């Protein structure tokens, strides 16, 4: 049996598309960790809520792009409320307590989604139905558009962090919280805004993911776990590293599912995480710390 070149190429494209969606989730997670030492266990639930809000909006208006905007803004606002009510009181305590608090939140959100939207899977209507032929199958343009859009959002975040006044505040608070406060930066506000940005990005990826597979209230845990793996493999709090790691992990899983079933392919990324933690705990895609 020869090397199935077509399959490998198809899986490469699949891996890249999934990787960009995952990168969108993980960059929010890593930003939140980098700036306030919060390990957000509820991040996947924000993806899930975003997808459901998007589904409801599409149901009412029929417009996918509007749904993307509404879901992003709504979940960002919700994230801000969440941060103020539950995470702000925990500032300065052991980071482990934030795991516990956000774990509690994730339980609540998951069951709330079950209550509000029911147990059946929902598939969002894709806005672009055109397909192009890729070897022996028709590949939807929508998937490509997803990857491009995710890349655009991440690029916008980079530009915002680099040139925006608020972005500079964020980077300052990331480097040294106390000094930033001393220079007059409203650090509590920065924390809230960063959490809102992370939540909004999670919601956006939820809506983008919606048409690819059915959305149920259970997808959150899966996203949380994957995003964690990505964030650790990429180096906690390192934005660029997380994005590379997201693509790396997704490609690994895509290639692995050529050989084993997709359910078992997850183990490959688990092993990648464990190997990273053992041999390079600072992350694969960051320069060696001096």
């Amino acid at each position, binding site marked *: 049996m020869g090397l199935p070149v077509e399959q490998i190429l198809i899986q490469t494209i699949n891996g890249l598309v999934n990787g960009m969606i995952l990168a969108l989730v993980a960059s929010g997670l890593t930003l939140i960790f980098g700036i306030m030492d919060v390990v957000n266990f509820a991040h996947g639930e924000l993806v899930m809520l975003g997808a459901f809000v998007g589904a409801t909006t599409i149901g009412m208006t029929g417009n996918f792009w509007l749904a993307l905007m509404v879901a992003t803004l709504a979940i960002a606002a919700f994230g801000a409320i969440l941060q103020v009510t539950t995470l702000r009181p925990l500032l300065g305590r052991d980071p482990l307590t934030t795991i516990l608090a956000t774990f509690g939140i994730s339980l609540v959100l998951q069951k709330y989604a079950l209550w509000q939207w029911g147990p059946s899977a929902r598939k969002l209507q894709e806005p672009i139905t055109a397909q192009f032929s890729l070897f022996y199958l028709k590949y939807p343009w929508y998937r490509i558009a997803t990857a491009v859009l995710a890349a655009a959002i991440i690029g916008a975040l980079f530009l915002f962090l680099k040139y925006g006044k608020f972005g500079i505040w964020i980077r300052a608070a990331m480097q040294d919280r106390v000094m930033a406060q001393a220079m007059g930066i409203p650090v509590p506000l920065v924390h809230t805004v960063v959490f809102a940005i992370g939540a909004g990005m999670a919601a956006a990826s939820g809506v983008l993911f919606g048409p690819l597979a059915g959305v149920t209230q259970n997808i959150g*845990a899966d996203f949380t776990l994957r995003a964690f793996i990505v964030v650790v493999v990429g180096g906690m709090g390192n934005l660029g590293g997380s994005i590379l790691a997201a693509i790396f992990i997704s490609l690994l899983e895509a290639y692995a599912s050529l050989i084993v079933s997709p359910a078992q392919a997850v183990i490959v990324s688990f092993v990648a995480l464990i190997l990273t933690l053992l041999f390079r705990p600072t992350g694969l895609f960051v320069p060696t710390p001096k």
Partner: protein
Amino acid sequence: MRRSAALYWTGFCVILALLAVAPLVLPAFWRRFVTEILIWGLLAMSSDILIGYTGMVSFGHSAFFGLGMYGAAAALMVVKPANLWLALVLGLAAAAGVAVFVAFFATRLRDIYFAITTLVFSQIFYVIIFTWTDVTGGENGLTFARPALSIPGLFSVPFTTETLHWFVLAVVAVSFLILRRVTQSPFGMVLQAIRENEPRARAIGYSVERYKIVAVMLSGLFAGLAGILYAIQNKFAAPDFVFFLVSGEVVIFNVMGGMGTLVGPVAGAAFFLLLREGLSRYFTEYYLIPVGIIFTAMVIFMPQGLLGFARRRLNQ
């Protein structure tokens, strides 16, 4: 000091006696319920060794619990007639095997990295058990008959609700005494030193890694024991119990009851299960919404848990 020790043991005996007569006086539903609280309490106690005493939050206790369950299931299904003691031995061996594996890799990491690694390990075992349908029964799990309570050559009686409860109570009480002794031993003191200040414990000359490995193994063994008891009580093993939500519940037990007290997590388990029982009458399957809110509020406002809160109130 002497008086408080006497008070402690009196309290212990009273609670033990109350738990022993519980199946004789309670209605049928609550008998089972109390047994279940004891089993989950044992699991919570085992994880307290890591969370409360060593300062390592484990999100992977479901792996130990589940492997104990499947180990017992294997012994009960393969060997005829089913033997209780063989189930115990095999279940503990399975849990210990996993514990060695997890301990070797995870103890090199600290804080959240430890939490995430243990979580990932338990998911690895979950995926293996879930997809290896030929051996583990996959999603459906395994069902088997309950073994008889026997001492070879002496007697053999089938388990009734009462004898099962007493058996579980005896195992849990002995485990509690062992764990209490361990936490008060020099070994336990070193674990607490690691929790308080790891670099200092290392500087004094303790081999921190070795202590952590032993702590994870000990914790895993008792978690496996809880899994075996659960398998015997319910006559099945299912992959749901290896899923990380179970580990999350164990952490909830610890936080609700009070970490680092051994008794606290048992109280937390009882509180959680009672809460679930009471709330699911009104909220059906959505009981986790109020429970999650209560839990999050307790993390923020009551970080020492019910027991710590009660103790502070009593001291005032």
